[in-house]
């Protein structure tokens, strides 16, 4: 059934379609309408779930962990400072191997106080052991929640996943979204059936102390699970496409890259803008493409190496900045490409922080710059786009 809805409602409908059973959540701008909609679904009986109004995001994730240990399918949503407050418990969820699925409405970190789109909050949690999926559209948000549960709950994986939608650009913007048929979702995503769970009559301690002689073995298992998730994400998406007719390009979603001279790497809603710029420049005869990071964890190593074999230049657009280094996407892609036989020219572009619009004009200028870089070679210095006070690049 097609409805017009915001990214936040797409998240709520995704959690409902996946039949989340326990939803502990704390409201924060711009995530609030996800939680409101889910509370409404629960109160009207449309969704049979326990809605837990908690006193903080730390508690929200702690409640998710507890419910998940008991074998419940668990969902929550947060944003920026709420996500940061969860940090400790995010590690608990992944270390205890619990398939919690959460929407993070990606928003800038303060100060300066900001409620707008920026990937710093999500990027700052890349090391917590969660899978991270950046979404381009509201439909992708809804579909990815359903797919994520299937990936996360796979016996060989058992890891949590973060579904990332950009603040306001997706969270509060309405688009037509197909809400899939419930029976089809139910057969695609059977109810959660963990190998082991906590039972009331049988007390157990989860995640208890291990000594130095055994700790690394548990971490090694998590590494194997995240590695296996790469294939699982692809196979689940293939299956999803067979049933629902939609897919999103796996871990790295390439658009017009096969014969491209240069590719722009970006994540989130800006990819939609970049597609139109690619079309426009292609019409002028410029061989440009887009490689959209869909999964940041697990990181698409092979996909980037395959991209590098096709193009002469890679522009990496980071909507966050790791101070003292560079954009996180850029440094990780650079690392992945260090030993490829033919290394493309690379450059890092920092844009759109704190919700500043990344317009088609900005993307066009990035493409023009990276095309020049193919001849001049990589630029080690990240370029901050349109910072007032810096000389504006002439295209």
């Amino acid at each position, binding site marked *: 059934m097609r409805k017009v809805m915001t990214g936040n409602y797409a998240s709520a409908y995704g959690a409902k379609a996946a039949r989340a059973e326990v939803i502990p959540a704390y409201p924060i701008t711009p995530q609030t309408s996800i939680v409101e909609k889910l509370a409404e679904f629960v109160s009207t009986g449309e969704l049979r779930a326990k809605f837990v109004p908690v006193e903080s995001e730390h508690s929200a994730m702690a409640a998710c962990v507890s419910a998940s240990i008991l074998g419940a399918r668990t969902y929550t949503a947060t944003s920026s400072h709420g996500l940061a407050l969860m940090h400790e418990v995010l590690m608990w969820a992944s*270390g*205890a*191997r619990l398939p919690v699925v959460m929407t993070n409405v990606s928003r800038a970190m303060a100060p300066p106080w900001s409620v707008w789109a920026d990937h710093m909050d999500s990027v700052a949690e890349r090391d917590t052991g969660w899978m991270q999926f950046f979404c381009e559209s509201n439909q992708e948000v809804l579909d990815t929640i359903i797919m994520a549960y299937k990936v996360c709950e796979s016996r060989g994986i*058992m890891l949590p996943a973060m579904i990332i939608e950009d603040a306001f650009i997706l969270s509060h913007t309405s688009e037509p979204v197909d809400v899939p048929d419930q029976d089809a979702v139910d057969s695609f995503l059977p109810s959660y059936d963990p*190998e*082991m769970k906590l039972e009331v009559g*049988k*007390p*157990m*301690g*989860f*995640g*208890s*102390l*291990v000594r130095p*002689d*055994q700790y690394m*073995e*548990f971490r*090694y*298992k998590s590494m194997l699970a995240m590695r296996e998730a790469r294939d699982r994400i692809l196979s689940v998406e293939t299956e999803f496409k067979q049933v629902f007719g939609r897919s999103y390009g796996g871990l790295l979603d390439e658009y017009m890259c096969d014969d491209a001279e240069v590719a722009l790497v970006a994540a989130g809603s800006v990819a939609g803008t970049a597609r139109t710029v690619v079309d426009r420049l292609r019409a002028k005869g410029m061989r440009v493409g887009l490689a959209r990071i869909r999964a940041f964890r697990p990181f698409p190593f092979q996909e980037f190496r395959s991209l590098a074999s096709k193009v002469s230049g890679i522009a990496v657009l980071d909507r966050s900045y790791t101070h003292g280094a560079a954009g996180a996407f850029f440094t990780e892609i650079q690392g992945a490409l260090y030993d490829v036989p033919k290394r493309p020219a690379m450059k890092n572009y920092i844009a759109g922080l704190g919700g500043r619009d990344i317009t088609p004009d900005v993307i066009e200028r990035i493409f023009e710059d990276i095309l020049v870089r193919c001849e001049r070679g990589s630029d080690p210095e990240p370029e901050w786009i349109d910072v007032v006070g810096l000389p504006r690049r002439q295209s």
Partner: protein
Amino acid sequence: MSRSYEDIPLTPISDTPSTMNMTGLWRVFRPVVDLDKCKKCTLCWKFCPDAAIVLVDGKPKIDLRYCKGCGICANECLAECIIMVKEEAE
């Protein structure tokens, strides 16, 4: 004995409560109570961070299976009836 990563669960799971950990083995100093001097104020019982003191007729009895020998009871005791004695190797 350390086990292979293939033979361990996804996350460490214990089916026994933490009372199975005999933390008394950590002790270097043992509290010794002079029950004749005890005024039954129960401060030692209230302050024990490990709940290793039980009250018998209002007076403390140290549960040496769990007492880590931290000495807080001796420090808090107003009647000065608890002294810390170094454990000797048996």
